[in-house]
């Protein structure tokens, strides 16, 4: 079953088209990450899925229904952390959570557990205005976790968090996802989300450029890989000559060289290297870096 289904969704504000003909399916239980530059349409897509705005064209289905129906019981089963989460500063952390729990009609009994899970147990009785950015962000996640949501929307959840808080944040999301929560996370850093995503959707100027698992994206991108070899003494030139068929060969120094080759010829290359025997002492295969993949999609791929 699909938790989210967008079919041919476009959104225009006056003259500007911010979402262009997007087709996207998020399966139940999946961790989907949307990446794109600022203004790529990530936040607008999320607002469409949350029913905060209506599409100009196309259809949005969330948990099998129209997300804009506000009284729907489906809203009780979704959580959202906005990009810059804001709360009423005069309220205490506990009061904020009590208010949102009331709106979701979930029992107030498990706040303490949630507060502990996001690490705000000791700060629960302090005013939110005294919270740091990271604490506010975690309170944002706490309200989204109320009522064990089936579907979580996280809009750039880690912006403004330091690396260790960032890790904690993703650990929380991982633990939710292990219990079956579907999550949709937006980010502009591929490096950060690569290990956390089941699938990645790449957006540019409101259009979906690509969507798939990391290996799929890599394959589609067709970027070369680098094979680095360490040769026996004085063998570097002869090895370089023999490998010239696979792609560009760079001599790094008297012992090391690097071959830039396509994924399709990788295995053949490896076999031939193995056949060289002692002449090659060490080997290293370097896949394209994430920012290369991202840049490739941004620069070379046009939306269909």
């Amino acid at each position, binding site marked *: 079953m699909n938790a989210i289904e967008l079919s041919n969704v476009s959104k225009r504000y006056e003259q500007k088209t911010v979402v262009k003909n997007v087709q996207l399916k998020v399966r139940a239980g999946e961790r989907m990450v949307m990446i794109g530059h600022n203004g790529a349409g990530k936040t607008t897509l999320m607002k469409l899925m949350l029913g905060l*705005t209506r599409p100009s064209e196309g259809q949005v289905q969330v948990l099998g229904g129209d997300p804009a129906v506000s009284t729907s019981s489906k809203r009780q089963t979704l959580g959202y952390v906005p990009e810059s989460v804001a*709360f009423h500063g005069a309220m205490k952390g506990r009061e904020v959570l009590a208010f949102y729990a009331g709106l979701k009609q979930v029992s107030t009994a498990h706040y303490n557990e949630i507060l502990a899970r996001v690490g705000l147990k000791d700060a629960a009785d302090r005013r939110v205005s005294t919270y740091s950015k990271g604490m506010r962000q975690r309170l944002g996640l706490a309200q989204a976790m109320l009522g064990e949501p089936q579907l979580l929307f996280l809009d750039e959840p880690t912006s403004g968090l330091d690396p260790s808080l960032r890790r904690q944040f993703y650990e929380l999301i991982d633990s939710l996802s292990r219990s079956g929560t579907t999550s949709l996370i937006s980010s502009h850093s591929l490096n950060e989300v690569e290990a956390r995503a089941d699938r990645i959707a790449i957006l540019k100027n409101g259009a979906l450029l690509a969507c798939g698992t990391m290996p799929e994206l890599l394959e589609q991108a067709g970027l070369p890989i680098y094979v680095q070899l360490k040769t026996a003494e004085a063998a570097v030139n002869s090895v370089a000559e023999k490998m010239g068929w696979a792609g560009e060969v760079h001599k790094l120094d008297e012992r090391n060289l690097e071959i830039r080759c396509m994924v399709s010829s990788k295995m053949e290359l490896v076999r031939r290297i193995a056949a060289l025997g002692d002449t090659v002492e060490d080997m290293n295969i370097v896949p394209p870096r994430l920012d290369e993949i991202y840049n490739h999609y941004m620069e070379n791929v046009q939306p269909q």
Partner: protein
Amino acid sequence: MNATRLLAINEFVDGLRNRWVAACILLLGSMALTLLLVGSAPSGSTGAGALAISVVSLASLSVYLLPLIALMLSFDALVGEFERGTMLLLLTYPVSRWQVIMGKFFGHLMILTAAITIGYGGAALITVFTTDSGTAGWQAYLTMMASSLVLGAVFIALGYLVSVIVRERSTAAGAAVVLWLLFVVLYDLGLLGILLADHEQQISQALFSFLMLASPTDTYRILNLTAFDTVGQAAGIAGVAAKQGFSVPLLLSLLVGWIILPLLATIGLFHRREL
């Protein structure tokens, strides 16, 4: 309904937390007490009780103050939440947009109710128990309290309308001030101007009454100055309006209309708004 109640309570608790309720009670209470004590002095000679006399002065003051308090409570209610980003999150919860408006409305109404009941009511009780002015005119005083609440509600609703139309808090604050000036000061000045300029007396009394009823603040004035004879004696000018024979239900329903229409317009505009 549950969400509306929750939002209303939240709004009221917020008013308690940031001392709005306390400040309003203090302001209205001290004003009422001053006017009541002044009113209790000449009561022996005219025969009208302090309560009845002070209805005139309190109503004249409420007409300025309550719209101001109500607008200060409400101008920020929607635009402030849009700006802070709290509305975005709120609307992803199982809450309808009309529930957001009505929740805030009832919450703000609770704040005004507390301020008027404790402020005006408390001042009246103090006067009755500490002076020998008696309880004559208590019905007029109660009517004044109730209609003051209704007047406040009118300006809460008008404040929401401002709050949903404009895009920035600062604009909303400016618009609220203009609204207050318009209804509380300028409209009446305009009416006076028309009367002064009208040498040939072409404006009939009926037209003039109609113009007065077109403003919620004047409707409130007429309601308080003419509803009770005891007050009318003290008011003096009331005789003019009393001849028109506006019934209390008519005046009240006009005021209620001034609540319902802006609220409906606010809900309508809010529904169309994209976040």
